[in-house]
């Protein structure tokens, strides 16, 4: 089934446009090129509106505008009815099925927007060798469900941005729903299974009415089963939230790939600032110390010759006994008084006593000059000693200051590096990603713990249910009168088990088929043949791409690789579902780097051999990299331009040269 023709009448910026998709080559590939705002996405919306009655890709600007074309409104007369009409014609083996949605609006100049009157949806089936058959709304919907069920239309008409985001959100539940739809087991899931469950309940209640013990067990069993059902829902919800947080972490990791850890860097910067301040204070303190020593040393060293001269005079005078020995009269007097040396505590013998008395006499009798000389001796010696010590300390301080200055240089150099890094990356975003990742990580852990508790409760409840069912069965065996009822209950239980089992088997088979087909397609189309080893769809219906080293690498692959994986999965869904519908992608290379556009061009070329493919590009996206692959194989190429008033699409077809 392929789209043959689309006609848009008074739909948004399409006044009256007809687009044909005729396959002239072995590749059923068609292009629509248009600048941003020229109507490409609304073309996708028109398809959805015609087939399903909604516009899932509507931009904020378009939401503010009426569905009805603005020129149609302005040129209409007061009170006139104007139609918005989109017609999509499919063709398969000479049979045409044309879906038309028509909305009627009444124009009142006093109203801002035209007033909606009614909407009609119908389909017409026609062929050369048969009469046309018109299908009413309900019949048309049923017919459409056979081509592209509304539940999985997202896998047929989508934009490139979504292709890239395909695996960023938790898709497990959506993929599960899609598999249910394409397995066509909805009937089992939504109708047969619940109905059998209700019948079983009714039969047990009937048995209970005849035996109070059975009644009690039935009540307990129903309560336990209700609790089990709720618990199951809670567990499913928990799994979903775990998947969301896991994907969230992967997204953050992808965003943060190669990005520095801002929190750590800022902590480092904070520490460096503190170190810088501390080091500067240290240097300042040491420079101050050094300055004091230098000042003192400068005086001492320049006066040192005079000190040396004076000390020499003192020395000579002492040799000549012109000045008394250097001793304290107080100490000498104290020693004599106590008959004991005040310094070493030795008792004074007569010789020592005489010597001390002589010294004391000498000091007392010395001249004023001698006293002056005695008084200068110690301070001058101290100055010279200090000078020696100061020189050593100057050297030490200089070394310490040099070392601290080098440390300061290193700190400042690292600070410069960090500031450069911070300038290069969007700090706000990076911080946000780190915070988000932390949040997801916490949520993931919390939900894992919650899941553990719930699963434990589920296990216990399962045991309780089995116990109650056993109890019920034993009691039923005793009821000779209710053999028929017992048979019915057993039959119903078995039927329910079969339905559930069948559903699981079909789901599993479908999942396996999709997994296998996705793998085939991906490995056929991927340009890096050696990098990836496998593709798995988990029990939670999550897709995992396995690197040849054995780890899951979905979070770290490029946008082009992710897009190819999404495309392979989509095509696998198409294939397994048996819905031979076209694939329409708006901005298919929006997130893809230049070097990979060529690769994707080849992919689309391959895909369009077996499937009608309609791609919508902006002129800049349709760069040489991709056009050199596509231009030679494409069929129709349309260019959307806006009219001078910029409110209407002007269509131009470009023939292949």
């Amino acid at each position, binding site marked *: 089934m392929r789209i043959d023709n689309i006609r848009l009448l008074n739909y948004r910026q399409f006044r009256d446009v007809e687009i044909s998709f005729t396959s002239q080559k072995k590749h059923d590939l068609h292009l629509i090129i248009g600048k941003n705002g020229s109507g490409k996405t609304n073309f996708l919306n028109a398809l959805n509106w015609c087939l399903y009655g909604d516009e899932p890709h509507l931009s904020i600007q378009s939401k503010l505008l009426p569905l009805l074309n603005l020129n149609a409104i302005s040129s209409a007369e007061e009170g006139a009815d104007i139609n918005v009409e989109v017609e999509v014609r499919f063709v398969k083996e000479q049979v045409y099925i044309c879906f038309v949605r028509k909305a009627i609006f009444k124009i009142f100049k006093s109203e801002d927007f035209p007033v909606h009157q009614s909407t009609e949806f119908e389909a017409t089936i026609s062929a050369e060798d048969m009469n046309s058959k018109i299908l009413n709304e309900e019949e048309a919907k049923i017919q459409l469900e056979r081509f592209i069920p509304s539940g999985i239309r997202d896998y047929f008409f989508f934009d490139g941005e979504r292709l890239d985001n395909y695996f960023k959100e938790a898709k497990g539940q959506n993929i599960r729903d899609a598999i249910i739809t394409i397995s066509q087991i909805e009937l089992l899931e939504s109708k047969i299974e619940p109905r059998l469950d209700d019948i079983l309940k009714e039969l047990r209640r009937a048995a209970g009415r005849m035996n109070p013990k059975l009644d009690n067990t039935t009540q307990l069993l129903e309560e336990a089963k209700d609790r089990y059902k709720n618990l199951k829902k809670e567990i499913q919800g928990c799994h979903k939230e775990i998947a969301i947080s896991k994907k969230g972490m992967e997204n953050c990791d992808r965003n943060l790939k190669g990005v520095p850890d801002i929190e750590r860097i800022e902590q480092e910067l904070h520490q460096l600032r503190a170190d810088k301040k501390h080091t500067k204070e240290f240097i300042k303190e040491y420079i101050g110390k050094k*300055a004091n020593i230098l000042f003192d040393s*400068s005086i001492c060293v320049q*006066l*040192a010759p005079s000190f*040396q001269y004076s000390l020499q005079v003192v020395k000579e005078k002492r040799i000549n006994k012109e000045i008394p020995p250097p001793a304290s009269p107080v100490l000498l007097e104290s020693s004599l008084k106590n008959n004991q040396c005040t310094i070493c505590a030795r008792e004074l013998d007569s010789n020592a006593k005489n010597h001390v008395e002589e010294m004391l006499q000498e000091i007392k009798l010395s001249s004023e000059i001698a006293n002056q000389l005695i008084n200068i001796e*110690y*301070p001058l010696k101290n100055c010279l000693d200090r000078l*020696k010590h100061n020189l050593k300390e*100057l050297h030490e301080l200089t070394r310490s200051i040099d070392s601290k200055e080098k440390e300061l240089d290193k700190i400042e150099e690292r600070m410069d590096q960090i500031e450069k890094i911070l300038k290069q990356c969007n700090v706000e975003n990076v911080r946000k990603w780190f915070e988000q990742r932390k949040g997801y990580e916490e949520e993931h852990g919390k939900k894992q713990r919650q899941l553990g508790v719930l699963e434990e409760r589920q296990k216990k409840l399962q045991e309780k249910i089995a116990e109650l069912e056993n109890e019920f069965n034993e009691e039923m065996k005793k009821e000779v009168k209710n053999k028929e009822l017992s048979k019915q209950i057993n039959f119903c239980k078995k039927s329910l088990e079969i339905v559930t089992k069948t559903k699981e088997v079909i789901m599993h088979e479908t999942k396996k088929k999709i997994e296998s087909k996705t793998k085939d397609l991906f490995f056929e189309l991927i340009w890096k043949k050696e990098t990836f080893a496998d593709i798995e769809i988990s029990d939670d219906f999550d897709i995992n791409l396995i690197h040849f080293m054995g780890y899951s690498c979905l979070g770290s692959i490029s946008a082009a690789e992710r897009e190819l994986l999404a495309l392979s999965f989509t095509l696998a869904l198409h294939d397994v579902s048996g819905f031979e519908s076209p694939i329409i992608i708006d901005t298919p290379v929006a997130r893809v780097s230049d070097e990979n556009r060529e690769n994707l061009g080849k992919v689309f070329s391959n895909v369009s051999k077996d499937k009608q493919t309609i791609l919508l590009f902006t002129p800049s996206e349709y760069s040489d990299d991709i056009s050199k692959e596509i231009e030679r194989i494409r069929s129709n190429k349309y260019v959307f331009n806006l009219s001078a008033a910029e409110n209407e699409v002007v269509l131009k077809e470009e023939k292949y040269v």
Partner: protein
Amino acid sequence: MSDVPDRLNIDKKDRDLYNKLDQEEILRFKGGKRTRKEQFLLALSFGLKNNVSKPLNAKEGWFLTKDLNEEDKAILNSIALYNTKSVEVLNRKSEVFKIAEEYAHAGIRLLFDLMNSVQFGSFNKRLELDVINNFNKLSLNDVNE
């Protein structure tokens, strides 16, 4: 009344030079870094080192002798002794102070010239270099043991 002076003087014209020492952090009087006495002793050391002294034309009291500690007194006595080569000078305090004042009067100009001769920010380095060179020329072990 004692004939011992109660203060040490500078030449009135030197006040401006002393104030200009504030240009260098290491010599600064403002902010309490250095005292007038310390500045005076440094100027004195420059005069003695270069063996120049100059009589004061007009005196201005610079700091009081009560601010001199035992070490300062020993230094001033030592300079007088070195200058006169006579221990008798130690009994004449006014002469001891006069000798110091005259060395400081000559030395402050030398200090000021040195300060202006070096590039901004390198005075301390120059001072450090001079201290090391002068220290290396000394033989400190002779008398000090």
